[in-house]
């Protein structure tokens, strides 16, 4: 089937005589041409001003990472005097904020000369970072192996495999801590493994300091509070660092997952884990959010705003709502890390809370 021919509208050509004369107003019909050209330029600029800023044109998918939309979600604010804007990170190429991080991590390994022809980029991850590393590794031609708890949803494994990454299982009951220690063990045994290590690599917060933070301030100069999930802490550390410098006084607020009862596979408190990149002094508040509250907010987000996010988006919005209740007026930017696709098989959007009881106790994957 033939496609309809595009209609091409050519801008009026500048009058050659005018250009040669060098001075405006001296050529034949100069004033008219000038007015015409001016009016056209004006109309053109105006048309673009009326349009939403659009996605742009890039040479490479890796350049299309970031530049995500900021969308007001008034129906999620419990305080009419507080505006909440959502930064939609699900719009990134592999569907999560981790594209930003993975790009910076791999570029960091490249810059440090750590990637040899037989190198395998290794990372402990329960999902999004792995998928992002797999895609970027494929694009750049690196082998990627991911250590994942054996109980993550199948969509994550499928996505990682789709981009050619190998998946190494760690015991699900040990959660992310278990994946981290297995990855560290593998690196110590086989020199081909090169760990990108989002929990301890400064490239993680730097990705947010150099991209996410500036995007937020450009789109929302009136921001008073920034809310994000606390996983590796990279988003909060990086955006926090940028905003503290560029707009002192902005509150940096963390939403933290309430860990599941059965998945705290620790023998003592000292086996706990604090990411090396985490600087507690960067935060102004931290809210613990249960899985049930997160999922309830997530469903509200779909129903009221038409935004389809993952469970951590719900948690971020619960924390944002608690902040909004403390404010007299102002503006909150809430970073929504990923979309809901990878959670469909877990029934996150459909099952009753009674049916989900065990999963809610055991926890839902966030990051």
């Amino acid at each position, binding site marked *: 089937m033939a496609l309809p021919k595009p209609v091409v509208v050519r801008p009026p050509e500048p009058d050659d005589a005018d250009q040669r004369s060098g001075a405006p107003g001296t050529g034949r019909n100069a004033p008219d041409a000038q007015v015409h050209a001016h009016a056209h330029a004006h109309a053109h600029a105006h048309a673009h001003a009326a349009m939403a800023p659009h996605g742009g044109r890039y040479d490479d998918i890796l350049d299309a990472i970031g530049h995500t939309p900021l969308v007001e979600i008034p129906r999620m604010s419990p305080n009419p005097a507080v505006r909440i804007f959502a930064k939609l990170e699900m719009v990134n190429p592999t569907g999560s904020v981790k594209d930003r991080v993975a790009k910076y991590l791999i570029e960091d390994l490249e810059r440090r000369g750590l990637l040899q022809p037989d190198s395998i980029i290794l990372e402990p991850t*329960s*999902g999004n970072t792995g998928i992002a590393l797999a895609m970027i590794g494929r694009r750049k031609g690196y082998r990627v192996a991911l250590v*994942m*708890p054996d*109980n*993550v*949803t199948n969509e994550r494994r499928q996505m990682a495999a789709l981009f050619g990454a190998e998946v190494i299982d760690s015991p*699900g009951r040990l*959660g*992310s*801590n278990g*994946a*981290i220690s297995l990855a560290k063990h593998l690196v110590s045994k086989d020199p081909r493994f090169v760990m990108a290590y989002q*929990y301890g690599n400064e490239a993680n917060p730097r990705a947010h300091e150099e991209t996410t933070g500036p995007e937020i301030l450009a789109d929302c100069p009136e921001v008073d509070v920034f809310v994000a*999930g*606390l*996983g*590796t*802490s990279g988003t909060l550390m990086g955006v926090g660092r940028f905003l503290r410098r560029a707009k002192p006084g902005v509150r940096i607020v963390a939403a*933290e*997952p*309430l*860990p*599941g*009862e*059965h*998945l*705290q596979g*620790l*023998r*003592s*408190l*000292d*086996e*706990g*884990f*604090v*990411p090396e990149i985490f600087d*507690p002094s960067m*935060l*102004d*508040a*931290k*809210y*613990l*959010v249960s*899985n049930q509250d997160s999922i309830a907010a997530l469903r509200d987000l779909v129903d009221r705003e038409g935004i389809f996010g993952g469970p951590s988006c719900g948690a971020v919005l619960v924390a944002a709502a*608690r902040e909004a209740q403390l404010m007299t007026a102002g503006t909150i930017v809430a970073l929504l890390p990923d979309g809901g696709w990878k959670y469909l098989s*877990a029934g996150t959007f459909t099952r009753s809370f009674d049916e989900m009881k065990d*999963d809610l106790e*055991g*926890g*839902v*994957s*966030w*990051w």
Partner: protein
Amino acid sequence: MSVVRIPTVLRPQVGGNKEVELAGTTVREVVDALTSQYPSLKSQLLTDEGALNRFVNVYVNGQDVRYLDGLATPVGERDEVRLLPAMAGGAHAR
């Protein structure tokens, strides 16, 4: 009396209880009441200087007390105090 929620990892040291009711008007008073009842917890929750161990987080009504008034954070009659080990985000994978 406020309810203190005990994390799985510490339950063996408090007779297997998920929750303990304790008196106290600040987090420090509540933690002191807990450790005087269960002395083995003291070295795990607090440093030698009496500050909170960096691997333990304490929340009053879901807010981390490090960003409130720390151990001086007031605790009301109906407030929920929760102790949790520091965990990597996504520690509960599924």
